[in-house]
């Protein structure tokens, strides 16, 4: 039993944090926010330093790490609210590695490792959000698959070449690998979002070869692949939230130490410090549950309970922390010139992407009662 990170993991964590801290400065993030919300320079930097290739197997130019190492990098990203789609490419790499056919792996993994391929995952559904029951429908006919349907607010879709699209294919769940740039019948409508992340509604009316279904020809269980994609996505988002919570608390500590009221620093008022301390406790709960879920996924264990717990804390806990941090900043928090608001916006937007705390509790409740 050992909760310590390995030497390699420490190196990855520190490297990622260093890149994000150096590149994603407040000024830079502000600039990117105004010009589309995707920091391509940082993206390239992450490729150059090997962070993009973390979860790509060595034979395709990566270093073959898993969910834990990806989570460590994402914590560093969240801490600096850096506008890049790292969780999407990391989770996509893991899905291709675990479920892709050799051809699919050879087609996409090198590009992910080099940063050339930007991947997107279309998890959200309209209405009741049950990822495991896609509403986008596909039907096979003579080596081709026809896919029709709508996926709302797909993150970074307008920048992505590869889209992972969960579909109901002839009655069973599968993941389609869709070239979002050059497939006829792909319609993308960019939408504005709370935290300025680029997203687009995705309308599909396409014909693709059956070879574009994840794992085609190698006999995978599509439902398992979709569950794995979903669970890795939740854990990636949870790791981002850990960083977001950390970052907002760090800014809060600075603010409370520096701001003077009634002749004393704000930190001399227990009403502020007790609230900040509660945030710390919540952030630690988020951290240990996210790392545990990542570890169980990386070991290939059944992680349904662990992922539900991590997702619950990442949704509920992060909102508590960023709301407290924003409030403790007083008036200055309302001014977009000051960086703390960005953590608030990220915290609530990621919570929306994760799904409500209540939904994760319900899933967990079903697992508990079943056991």
């Amino acid at each position, binding site marked *: 039993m050992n909760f310590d990170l390995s030497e390699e993991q420490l190196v990855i964590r520190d490297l990622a944090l260093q890149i994000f801290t150096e590149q994603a400065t407040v000024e830079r993030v502000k600039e990117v926010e105004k010009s589309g919300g995707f920091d391509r320079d940082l993206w390239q930097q992450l490729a150059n330093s090997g962070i993009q290739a973390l979860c790509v197997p060595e034979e395709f130019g990566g270093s073959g790490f898993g969910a834990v190492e990806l989570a460590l990098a994402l914590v560093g990203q969240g801490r600096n609210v850096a506008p890049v789609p790292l969780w999407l490419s990391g989770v996509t790499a893991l899905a291709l590695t675990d479920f892709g056919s050799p051809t699919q792996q050879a087609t996409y993994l090198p590009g992910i490792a080099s940063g050339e391929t930007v991947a997107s995952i279309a998890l959200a559904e309209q209405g009741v959000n049950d990822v495991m029951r896609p509403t986008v429908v596909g039907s096979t006919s003579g080596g081709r698959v026809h896919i029709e349907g709508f996926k709302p607010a797909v993150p970074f879709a307008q920048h992505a070449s590869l889209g992972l699209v969960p579909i109901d294919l002839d009655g069973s769940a599968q993941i389609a690998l869709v070239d979002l740039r050059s497939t006829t019948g792909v319609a993308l409508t960019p939408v504005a*979002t709370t935290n300025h992340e680029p997203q687009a509604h995705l309308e599909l009316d396409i014909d693709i070869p059956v070879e574009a279904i994840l794992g085609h020809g190698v006999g995978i269980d599509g439902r398992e692949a979709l569950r794995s994609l979903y669970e890795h996505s939740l854990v990636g988002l949870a790791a981002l939230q850990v960083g977001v919570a950390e970052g907002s608390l760090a800014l809060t500590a600075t603010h409370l130490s520096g701001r003077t009221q009634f002749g004393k620093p704000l930190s001399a008022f227990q009403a502020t410090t007790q609230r900040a301390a509660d945030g710390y406790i919540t952030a630690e709960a988020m951290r240990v549950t996210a790392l545990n879920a990542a570890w169980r996924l990386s070991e290939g264990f059944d992680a349904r309970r662990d992922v539900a717990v991590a997702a619950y804390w990442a949704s509920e806990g992060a909102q508590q922390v960023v709301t407290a941090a924003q409030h403790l900043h007083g008036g200055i928090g309302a001014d977009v010139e000051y960086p703390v608001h960005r953590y608030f916006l990220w915290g609530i937007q990621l919570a929306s992407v994760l799904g409500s705390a209540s939904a994760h509790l319900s899933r967990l409740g079903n697992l508990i009662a079943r056991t």
Partner: protein
Amino acid sequence: MHIGDTREEADYRAQARAWLEAHAPRKCDTHRADSVDHSRDLAGHVQACRDWQSVLFDHGWAGITWPEQFGGKGASAIQAAIFNEEMAQFDVAVGTFAVSIGMVGPTLIAHGSPEQQQKHLAPILKGEEVWCQLFSEPGSGSDLASLGTRAVRDGDDWVVNGQKVWTSLGQYADYAILLARTDGDRPKHAGITYFILDMKSPGIEVRPITQITGVQHFNETFLTDVRIPDSNVVGGANEGWKVAQTTLANERNFIGSGGSWSATDLVDLAQRRGCAADPHVRQRLAEAVSRQETLKYLGFRMRTAMSQKRMPGPEILALKLAFANHWRLSAETAIGILGADAMLWGDDAIEDNQWGHHLLSQFAIRIGGGTDEIQHNIIAERGLGLPREPTPDKNLPWRSLNRVG
């Protein structure tokens, strides 16, 4: 005790509703003239408020609680509340006059000179004068009395230099109420003067602040050698703190007295989104209704006291805190109901983006008019009789204080 309308009140309500039906459009579900989202056309919203206020005045519905000598109706706080309850069901814009009618008016009525009253009260009621409040400073925050903007006497004028912040609608205001330090040798509360400032005076620069919501409701205001005639002092030189208390109490009441939505809107939202039958959602809706009921009855109690010309008790402080809490929790519930759609913003947002804006504007409610923390302190003191927090700097000269900014 009579918690419902009396016969007279019911008549008044019917009269108000009939007039509103004739003069204002009903609210529809997803768009509100008085929504919090003015990121796209704030100037248009201000104009709409001016227009509606003028309609109110022309038909005798402006300044319901103001004395008749100042153009008001001399009616009770309860009648005003009835009118506002009815008006809340119509799609009209009123927010711009929160400062003018809600704070400046009562302050001038209580402390203004006859000339000041004569000059400003009627135009305010008519919607001709938009006012802003130049109280907060970057360095003062909750410790408002530590403010450092200086006003120095020069002949018949005062010359003002300093920086203010969180100036609501400063870019559209005709006049401002201004607090400035006129004697730095006295303790901090004792050297402040309350001024009326014409916002067209030379030396005023207003810079909008873009808020987290994208709206530019607030501003920074820079004052450089701005001249104010001595006749614009309200309540006497160095007596400004007392005058400001009237303004601040009215600000708290205003914030605590409700928003542009209610728990019913939340129920409607859940029904439109098809999740009102979900037991978890329904529980949150019931909580929202339960909270709203407490606000309603705390408000009744406050207005009962005001109508009897009594000072409301500490429940008025509970009201603002409970309201801020209700606002936050209701916005979070709405965001939960919207799910992934809650991320959408601006023109792409659904439900006119009102719930996203509510979530993001919770902080203005919780900070403006006294932070949650300050309100708690006052409740501990006045509601529970706990000793006041020690204020060691209370009697020291302002100049000697450990200030920032």
